[in-house]
């Protein structure tokens, strides 16, 4: 029997990613499109797929919410908790790749934008690969932490039976 407190905690933990990753980006995009001159929008959309990024963030937000809800509904010793925590860490990592790749996670932190102006070609390259390395480190810590927490919780649960 799941307590009411646990259900409330699970629902609240699921609402947070929905607000951060679904509501705010969508509202922000609408606000951005209203404040940018209409003639500049195709140019911006050609370089940065804003709609695609926001859509992907919304999907990630919903996945995060489901994982967070399921993780908080079960006990610490449940394998569902372990799997939810690990999946959540991977989803966060994917979102980081998506944002640093301006909508394309396969860019792995390197973005190249080229613009042709009259007789010139301007190319901007941003190299943020080091941030991916840092995020990989965080992913490792998160997975290790989830496994250790699960191990001790499981051990305690089995000893208490």
């Amino acid at each position, binding site marked *: 029997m799941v307590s009411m407190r646990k259900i409330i905690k699970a629902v609240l933990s699921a609402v947070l990613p929905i607000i951060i990753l679904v509501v705010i980006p969508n509202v922000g995009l609408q606000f951005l499109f209203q404040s940018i001159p209409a003639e500049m929008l195709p140019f911006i959309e050609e370089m940065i797929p804003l709609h695609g990024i926001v859509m992907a963030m919304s999907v990630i937000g919903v996945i995060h919410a489901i994982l967070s809800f399921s993780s908080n509904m079960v006990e610490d010793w449940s394998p569902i908790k372990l799997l939810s925590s690990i999946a959540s860490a991977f989803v966060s990592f994917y979102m980081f790749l998506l944002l640093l790749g301006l909508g394309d996670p396969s860019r792995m932190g390197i973005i190249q934008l080229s613009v042709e102006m009259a*007789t*010139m*070609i*301007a*190319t*901007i*390259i*941003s*190299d*943020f*690969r*080091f*941030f991916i390395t*840092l*995020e990989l*480190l*965080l992913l490792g*810590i*998160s997975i*290790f*932490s989830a496994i*250790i*927490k699960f191990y*001790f919780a499981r*051990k*305690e649960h089995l000893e208490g039976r």
Partner: protein
Amino acid sequence: MAGKSKGILRILTVVSIVATLSVYAVTIVSGYTSAVSFAQNAMGIASSEMQISGDPSTGITFTFLLPVQNPGLLEVTATLNLKALSAAEEVIAEGVSSKRIPPGSSDELFVSLFVPPNEVEAFARGRIFLECRTLFNLVGISLSLEGEAPSPGS
């Protein structure tokens, strides 16, 4: 045993929180520094003028002076590279200037490039490359502008 496991879990939680906060702080500070210093200096290219002297019989000298600033929070390494290229993208002449600029300071990058008389005819394109790197040169943003070769008097 329960006390020991709680201790380990507590350490793990603290390490995890500290690591997460550190990574986000480093990402935000260095991302901000490279973005603002790059934006500031890339706009400087548009307002800077390239000086061209000499003629095809004696060789042509190109000089470019770019004032660079670092409005960011970390030290930035600004690099300016000028290249004279042939139609086949071969490098005819090259000049580089690089400086480390502390946060809140400014400096100048000066590059001089000499295209010898026997290479003037092959000189078809020019490339200006500006790069701003920070966090021990681990992250950065660069701009490459490539166009037809400027001629003396243009």
